C-alpha cells in the first residue's frame, strides 16, 4: 500500500487523570472513507480536535501526506488541506450563507491583507462559494443570514464551508447530529457523492450511516482503538461486541 494520507502514531492526550486519547494509532488511505465509532465519551471529538490542531497532543505524532503536522497551528493545517466540520455547529451566525462559504474560499486564495477592494464583489470568491453551496444543495439560500437557517441546513452549510477550503482530507464530527430521518438520508447521499472526490474521516453515532458509507471502521473505547478493519470484520469482532455490550445489536443488526 502507498503511504497513507493520514497517519496517527501513538497519540496521547490526558485531561488530569483521564487519558482521553490513549496511544491511538491510525492509518487513513488516500480516497478512503474511514469511520470512527465508539460509545459516548470514548474520546472521538478529542481525537478530531488533535487532528485539526485545536488541541495539542501530549505525545505521539500526526502525519498528513508524510509530513509531520503534530505541532502546526490549526490555520496552517487548513492550508495543507485539512478541513473539519464541528459536532456542535460552529458558523458565523451573523453572516449570510454565501459570506460564510466565501470566507472559507478566501482563506485559501492568497492572503487577506487587502484593505480596499470590496470582497463581496470578488467574483472568484463568490463563484467558489456558489459552487460549494450547490454541492450541498444550499445555493437557493445563499443570501440568508445563517442564524435563520434550520438546523439541518446549518449542518449542510458546515459541509459547504469545509468543501470551499478545497480539502484533501475532510474530518466530519457527527455531521448527522440532531438531524431528522429525511435530513439524515440526504446527508448520507451527499457524503456518498463527496467520498468520490475527497478522503473522509467520519465520526458518527448513526450506525446505519456508518455501515452504509465506511470503507474501514476504527472503534474507539476509553481512548483506545480496539479494532480497525472493514465493516464486515468489525461487525464480527468480539471485542467490539463486548465494548458495546447492551448496544451490540446496534452493530450487528444493520447492513
Amino acid at each position, binding site marked *: 500500500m502507498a503511504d497513507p494520507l493520514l497517519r496517527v502514531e501513538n497519540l496521547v492526550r490526558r485531561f488530569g487523570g483521564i487519558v482521553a486519547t490513549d496511544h491511538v494509532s491510525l492509518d487513513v488511505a488516500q480516497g478512503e472513507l474511514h469511520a470512527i465509532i465508539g460509545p459516548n465519551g470514548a474520546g472521538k471529538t478529542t481525537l478530531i480536535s488533535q487532528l485539526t490542531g485545536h488541541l495539542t497532543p501530549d505525545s505521539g505524532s500526526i502525519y498528513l501526506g508524510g509530513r509531520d503536522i503534530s505541532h502546526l497551528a*490549526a490555520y496552517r493545517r*487548513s492550508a495543507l488541506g485539512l478541513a473539519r466540520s*464541528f459536532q456542535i455547529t*460552529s458558523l458565523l451566525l451573523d453572516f449570510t450563507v454565501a459570506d460564510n462559504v466565501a470566507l472559507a474560499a478566501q482563506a485559501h486564495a492568497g492572503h487577506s491583507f487587502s484593505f480596499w477592494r*470590496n470582497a463581496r464583489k470578488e467574483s472568484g470568491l463568490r463563484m467558489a462559494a456558489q459552487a460549494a453551496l450547490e454541492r450541498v444543495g444550499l445555493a437557493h439560500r445563499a443570501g440568508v443570514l445563517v442564524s435563520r437557517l434550520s438546523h439541518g441546513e446549518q449542518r449542510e452549510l458546515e459541509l459547504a464551508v469545509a468543501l470551499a477550503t478545497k480539502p484533501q482530507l475532510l474530518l466530519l464530527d457527527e455531521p448527522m447530529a440532531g438531524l431528522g430521518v429525511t435530513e439524515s438520508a440526504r446527508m448520507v447521499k451527499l457524503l456518498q457523492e463527496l467520498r468520490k472526490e475527497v478522503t473522509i474521516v467520519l465520526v458518527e453515532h448513526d450506525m446505519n450511516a456508518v455501515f452504509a458509507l465506511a470503507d474501514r471502521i476504527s472503534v474507539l473505547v476509553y481512548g483506545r482503538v480496539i479494532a480497525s478493519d472493514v465493516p464486515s470484520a468489525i461487525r464480527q469482532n468480539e471485542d467490539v461486541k463486548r465494548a458495546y455490550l447492551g448496544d451490540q445489536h446496534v452493530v450487528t443488526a444493520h447492513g
Partner: protein
Amino acid sequence: MKDKLNARNLVSALLVAGLLLLPLYSQASGNVFVLTLFTRIVILALAAASLNLIMGYGGMMSFGHAAYLGIGGYAVGILAQEGFGSGFLQFPVALAASAIYALVIGALSLRTRGVYFIMITLAFAQMAYYVASGLARYGGDDGLTVYKRSDFGGLINLSNRTQFYYLCLACLLGVVFLIWRIVNSRFGMVVQGLRSNEQRMQAIGFPAKRYKLMCFVISGTLCGLAGALLANNTDFVSPAVMYWTRSGDLMVMVILGGMGVLFGPVVGAVAYLLLEELLSQVTEYWALIMGPLLLLVVLFARGGIMGLLGRLNRG
C-alpha cells in the same frame, strides 16, 4: 449592498450636511462658540470612529483608546516645543508614534481576551498617562502649551477657525470612508469573522492574531490623528487627555451611536457631547442626568441610536 433610503442613512446624510454647513451658520449668526464646540465634537467623533473599527467590527473591547489622543497630541506638542513647527513633520510623527504604540500594546494585549483584554488595554493607557505626567521637561502633570499650531505652509492655516474646522471634518469624513472600504474588504471580512467566531475562522485557515493586530494598529493610528488635531484645537496637551475616563467617554460614544455601524460613532459623539454641553448649562450635576440616560439607551435601545433607527425602518 446598495444604498437604501432608510432612517439610518437619512440621519447620517443629514448629519454630514449639517456638519458641512455649520460654519455658514456660525458666520451668519455670529455664534463663534458653536464652531469651537463642533470642532471638538468632530475630532472626538474621529477618535470614536477609530475605536469603532476594533470594538464594533473587530469585537476587541479596548479600554485604553484615549492613550492615542495623548500620543498624537504630545507628538505635536513636543515637536513644537523643540522648534519643529511643520505639520508635515508633526502629523506623520503623531501617526507613526501611535502606530508603534499600538503594535507593541496590541502584540501583548491580544494574547488575552474578554475582561482581561479590557483590563490590560486600560493598564497600558494608565501607564502612558503616568509617563506623560513624569515628563518634567514637557510640563509634567500641568501639561504642555502648544504656542503655535501645526504649520502647513500656505496650504491651510490652522489658526483660522473655519479652515481648521474643515480640516477636522475632512479628516473625519476621510477616516469614515476609509473604514467603510476596510470593513467591506477581504481584511474587513476576516476581522468581522473573527469577532463572530474565532475558532471557526482558524479552522478554515485564518491566522487570527495577525489580522487582529493589524486591525488594532490601524485603529490606533487613526486615533493618533485625532490626538494631533485635538492638541491643535486646544493649543494644549496634558496627561488628562489619556486618563481612563476619557477612554470610557469614547466607548460610550460608540455604544450610544451604535457599535459596528459606520456612522454610529459620529452620531454617538454628536449626541453625547451636545447633551453634555446642554445639560452642563442647566446644572453642574449634569452627570446625574446623563448617567441614567445612558443606562436607558443600553437597556432599551440595544445597538444604540443607529440600532433604534434600524428597527424604526423595519417597522
